[in-house]
């Protein structure tokens, strides 16, 4: 027994020596300096489509930077799969922060794993730039200065929507509907805030229980209120139900607009005529509209990745560009300490516009565009018959 333990101990010591030799070799072999950046995302599991494509884009940006010769060191990515699971994410975060060469990390598509891992980065004083998790509370004064986010929060989507429907289209008589859940009430507050900022009091507002299926009473209220525009800050279940019941009740001469949670193909199941004219904001940019975006698509496709570009893939690319920009500002010897301020004070123009961070580390660049249902399909608003004036939302 004792002998066995002794030999085991010996084996472990040998292993340790071996590891030391190998890692020493590794450092000797690499000519020049290495700077490491962590990446976290759901590379496998249910959200793998988003996570793996984001990893590809992130790696693409770093590879391009290394190839450009602008950096006097080699940048390496430690890529960690969080499997959309909180405890996996936390151990991945620990793996990243324990590497002394890591100067910054970017991570998370899921808000839960992000929230669970944030303490690890704060403790280790390693800056984390969130590229795809959108729960509002992730960026906060408490998490300053370590945590920043380049993706807009779910609430921030309301800003470009409001500027379109309130400022450009000029609707004044609003009825605001949402569900009582956290997503719904967050949107409810955000849009009500936009209305208040413009001195508009909504004609009416209702919050319905989550999973509600019968909204007929709300529809009757909207009908009799004389509202000219309806805002729905909820997901597709309630959003599509409200649109259909408005249509059935003959309330068709109003604008129906809402938030990205409704922009799924499921919305069309209420039927093309009932769905027609729903105006919904969604985050991101239409990539092939600008030169930078078209180049990104071409580069991504040239790499031959098996995962197609998803909604948040450009965000991951953009996050890498922001970190690279911050690295450039840190001179020849970037450290986690210098990176914290470099990220916060950065101003990066990438494929989605110009990103700067506000006082809680949240991006001020809310890239979003509007979609409308026309003849049974979601199309960008700017290409639609509604934008050209061939069709009208009503309520005018």
């Amino acid at each position: 027994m004792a002998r066995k333990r002794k030999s085991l101990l010996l084996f472990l010591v040998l292993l340790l020596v071996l590891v030391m030799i190998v890692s020493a070799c590794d450092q000797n072999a690499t000519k020049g300096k290495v700077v490491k950046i962590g990446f976290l995302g759901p590379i496998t599991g249910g959200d793998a489509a988003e996570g793996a494509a984001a990893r590809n884009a992130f790696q693409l940006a770093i590879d391009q930077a290394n190839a450009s010769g602008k950096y006097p060191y080699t940048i390496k990515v430690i890529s960690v799969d969080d499997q959309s699971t909180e405890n996996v994410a936390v151990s991945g975060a620990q793996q990243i922060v324990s590497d002394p060469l890591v100067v910054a990390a970017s991570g998370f598509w899921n808000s839960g794993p992000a929230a669970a891992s944030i303490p690890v980065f704060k403790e280790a004083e390693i800056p984390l730039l969130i590229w795809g998790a959108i729960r509002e509370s992730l960026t906060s004064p408490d998490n300053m200065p370590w945590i920043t986010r380049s993706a807009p929060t779910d609430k921030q989507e309301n800003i470009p929507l409001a500027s379109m429907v309130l400022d450009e289209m000029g609707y004044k008589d609003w009825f605001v509907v949402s569900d009582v859940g956290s997503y719904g009430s967050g949107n409810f507050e955000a849009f009500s805030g936009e209305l208040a900022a413009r001195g508009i009091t909504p004609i009416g507002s209702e919050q319905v229980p989550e999973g509600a299926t019968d909204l007929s009473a709300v529809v009757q209220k909207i009908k009799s209120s004389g509202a000219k525009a309806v805002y729905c800050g909820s997901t597709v279940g309630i959003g599509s139900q409200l649109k259909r019941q408005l249509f059935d009740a003959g309330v068709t001469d109003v604008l129906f607009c809402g938030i990205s949670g409704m922009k799924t193909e499921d919305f069309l199941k209420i039927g093309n005529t009932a769905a027609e004219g729903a105006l919904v904001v969604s985050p991101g940019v239409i990539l092939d509209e600008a030169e930078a975006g078209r180049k990104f698509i071409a580069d991504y496709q040239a790499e031959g990745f098996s995962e197609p570009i998803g909604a948040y893939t450009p965000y991951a690319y953009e996050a890498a560009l922001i970190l690279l920009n911050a690295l450039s500002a840190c001179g020849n010897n970037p450290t986690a300490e210098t990176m914290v301020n470099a990220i916060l004070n950065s101003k990066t123009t990438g494929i989605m516009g110009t990103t700067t961070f506000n006082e809680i580390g949240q991006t001020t660049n809310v890239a979003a565009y509007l979609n409308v249902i026309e003849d049974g399909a979601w199309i960008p608003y700017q290409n639609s018959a509604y934008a050209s004036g061939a069709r009208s939302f009503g309520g005018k």
Partner: protein
Amino acid sequence: MEMFAGLLVSALLLGCTYTLIAVGFSLFFGVMDVVVFCCGDIAIFGAFSIMGAYVVLMSAGLFNTLPFIVCVALLLLIGALFCATLGLVAYRFSIKPFSHSSELMPLLSTIALGTVIKEVLGLMFMPAVNASASAFGGEAALKVVSGRNPQGFPELLFPNGGVNLRYVTIICVTVLLLLLLFIFLNKTKMGLSMQAVSQNKELSMMTGINVSRTIVVTFIIGGVMLAIGGFLVGSYQKIMSFDNGAMYGAKGFSAAVVGGLRNTWGAVIGGMLLAFVEVFVAGYVANGAAYAGVVAFVVVVIFIIFKPEGIIGEKTVEKV
């Protein structure tokens, strides 16, 4: 005034859907003395089986060869068949094995069965429908989406007749169905024995009623009622989710309690009362939509406290 009329119609329609599910509860409670908690899920299962059968019939080309009304009748028949089978399964596997143990056991086991039904729909609905549709060489346009996504219920009630005709049909079908049930319960021997078993099971046995057969028939009839209930829910709601059953189950059960669990006609009044409270609170109270459901359940609690025998239930205590 226009709003009042609109709310009235909404309440009537919602009441119709609650009523049919509540009637299922009261029929089952009558013969078995247990609350079969998966009634809502059975109804949603019926709606989903109609949706699935619709896709299959479509891809088999039946809608092009047979008259539309025949196809709808066929779909209803399929839905009824599925629900009747499910009713029997519920009885055979989650109620009968516990008929000699505490009343809580069948209650729990039917809740469990409801969860099973829900999850089966969520997991298997689309794959099963896609597979059987493609067996007919059905159209590839069918998208493989998860059964957990919202599903669109096909337009089966006067597809070109507009929404008002559809609403009128929903109300008419409900009334007709209740009328048929009334005739069945009071004018046929089987209906009378269902009432007898509900009122006094032991005496029914002594009278020579085949009690177990009566129970089986009740579960079949209840299943058919729930299938048509699910059909009407689908036709009214247009968008169905696999997990709608729990909500309809809760509403149907509440309506049955308000009406007096054993009383089929009480269930009708209970369903209507619940729907009217919900719709009118949501309609006339500012920001009421969030609280309408709560107010409706408060009504239920008030009934349980002050009139546990239900709205038209009578207190009959037989002393011996």
